[in-house]
């Protein structure tokens, strides 16, 4: 698969894009909505291979960045409960909440464990029968099935002490909200490869029928991303607005039906709050009634009043309205070490990626 990193191909694609861009009547803005794209584009320095008419922006694709403050507050409150272990993916531990981060809660003596897989959290439940193990289920279509599988594993192993705090989200309703927002003026969408591997290309067809726009399902290598950009520019130049699957080695029309069936069995769609986008109908996943006993929301905890950091423009960054440096806090008050907004915490966050890889203009 090294060929997808082939510098010669990358440069040939960059030349193709430059030639196509000359036919653009104006500058264009393409949005990706996947943290792995954010990271991949920044790490390979791909923006520097694109002509100035093409602007790539990051939308709400970083799971921890779109997770609302109240969710992290609840996670911290749960961690402070006696006999409770909170298990989480690493990105979440430093996300600032109203009162404290999970990292700070851990320093106070709470049990917060970083895991690589929801299965590790099930294992924790097995080895700590005296504790409640709460897994923080955050992520999109890619992650939700793995958490569903972990819940079923806990059921099979009769581990009554395994719980999930579901903050899962699905992408199409959020895309619909973005495309319905006239202030954004997007010219094309770079659709997330891993999410699409589960949901399939078909998940986007209804919303793209309602809001026609050039849209490409994309992989993550430099060759993949540049092919995607070339296709988007071509569609704009030719006045087309189609869904194109350029990640067909992984993404099929129907996605992964086994995984999706598992999600539908374990979760129910609900309205959910997205940081920056507000509440979007049908965009969240809550545990289905059959699994209500696994839902960590059942534990009553005192929550602080949600306190959004003043001045933070995460919300506008997530909607692509501003680039990270346009936020007054960027790189001054808000840095990856003392993050004010969630977009600065995760490596996939638009602000963190910009801070690490794009900030020094004079490289």
């Amino acid at each position, binding site marked *: 698969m090294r060929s997808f*990193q082939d*510098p010669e191909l*990358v*440069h040939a694609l960059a030349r193709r894009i430059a030639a196509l861009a000359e036919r653009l009547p104006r500058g264009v803005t393409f949005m990706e909505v*996947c*943290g*792995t794209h954010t*990271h991949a584009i*920044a*790490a*390979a*320095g*791909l923006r*520097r*291979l694109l002509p100035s008419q093409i602007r790539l922006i990051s939308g709400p*694709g*970083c*799971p*921890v960045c779109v997770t609302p403050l109240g969710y992290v507050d609840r996670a911290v409150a749960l961690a402070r409960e006696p006999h409770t272990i909170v298990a989480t*993916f*690493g*990105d979440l*531990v*430093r996300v600032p909440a109203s*009162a*404290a981060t999970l*990292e*700070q809660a*851990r*320093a*106070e003596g709470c049990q917060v464990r*970083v895991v*690589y897989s929801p299965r590790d959290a099930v294992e924790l439940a097995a080895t700590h029968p005296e504790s409640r193990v709460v897994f923080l289920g*955050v*992520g*999109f279509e*890619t*992650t939700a099935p793995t958490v569903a599988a972990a819940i079923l594993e806990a059921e099979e192993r009769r581990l009554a002490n395994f719980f999930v705090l579901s903050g899962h989200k699905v992408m199409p309703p959020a895309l619909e909200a973005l495309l319905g927002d006239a202030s954004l003026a997007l010219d094309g969408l770079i659709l*997330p490869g*891993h999410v699409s591997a589960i949901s399939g290309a078909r998940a986007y067809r209804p919303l793209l029928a309602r809001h026609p726009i050039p849209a490409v399902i994309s992989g993550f290598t*430099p060759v993949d991303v540049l092919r995607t950009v070339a296709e988007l520019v071509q569609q704009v130049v030719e006045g087309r607005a189609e869904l194109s699957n350029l990640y067909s080695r992984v993404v099929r029309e129907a996605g992964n039906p086994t995984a999706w069936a598992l999600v539908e069995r374990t979760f129910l769609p609900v309205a959910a709050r997205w940081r920056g986008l507000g509440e979007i109908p049908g965009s969240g996943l809550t545990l289905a009634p059959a699994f209500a006993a696994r839902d960590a929301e059942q534990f009553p905890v005192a929550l602080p009043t949600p306190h959004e950091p003043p001045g933070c423009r995460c919300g506008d960054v997530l909607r692509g309205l501003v680039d990270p440096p346009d936020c007054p806090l960027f790189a001054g008050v808000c*840095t*990856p*070490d003392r993050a004010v907004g969630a977009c600065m915490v*995760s*490596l*996939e966050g638009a602000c*963190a990626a910009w*801070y*690490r*890889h794009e*900030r*020094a*203009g*004079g*490289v």
Partner: protein
Amino acid sequence: MSRRIVLAHGGGGRLTRELVRSLFLPPLANPQLAALADAAVLPWPGGQLAFTTDAFVVDPPLFPGGDLGYLSVCGTVNDLAMVGARPVALSWALILEEGLEEELLTTFVSGAQRACREAEVPLVAGDTKVVPRGKGDRCFITTAGVGVVEGGELGDGRVRPGDAILVSGPVGEHGATVLAARHGLAGDLRSDVAPLWRQVAALLASGVELHALHDPTRGGVATVCYEVAERTGLRVELEEEAIPVRPAVQAVMEVLGLDPLYVACEGRFLAFVAPGDAERAVAVLRGLPEAGEARPIGTVQPRRTDQAPVVLRTAFGTWRPLDLLSGAELPRIC
């Protein structure tokens, strides 16, 4: 709420640096400490003495290629070697957790013995404390080491624009090996942990114009380069394609979502060498079996104020800034 120490304070990134600069340096300031070198260099009758101390915690304590005891001796003599000092004597202080298996302790002692033999240095003083179960993670080791500076002056103050940067071998092997063990990954992985004095001595004896040496331990190659760039006001330019990373190390990094330039080596060093001497320095290192893959990976350049301190030229010819690590490097979700 009072501020507390979090794990990221020990990650080798920006928080570690902040802790050192704001909490330790102001009250304890002196010229040697302020240099923030791997070892302090002290004037001494008839020469210069190098003095260093280090603390070791590693999970797991046994890993392919080494163990906590071997690592503790290597880490200490390597700190001395980085200021051009031949190790003369070491001390070893152990904090043992109640319940530690004696067999594990024996392994650490054998590891230390092997490292002392390889580095030709005696361990001349020690101390042992035992803490109640739950108050420590099996075994913590703290060392001190003294050495005699043989290399004339080495240090970031001597680094000049144009200097070549060499690496003594493939990077990231210690970090990848330990992380793989921690996350249940198996493969052809082995920590690079080793004493470095022999390689440094060969460079010093060859007469090449050496300016500075650094071992990229915690925080890896990127962090060390960042610190040099910051201390000198110069800019480090690295070539991504030139930096040797073994396929198995690359694979572990891909699986865990980490960057090999930010994970630890425990038996490699970077040498900052006068431009005309780079080729000769590489040849000297390659003459030793343990540094057969030594090679140039970048250069030092002047820096304008608007430029990033460290940049990496990618395989695609684009430049990417390498920043300090923020907190502990965390696995990504998506």
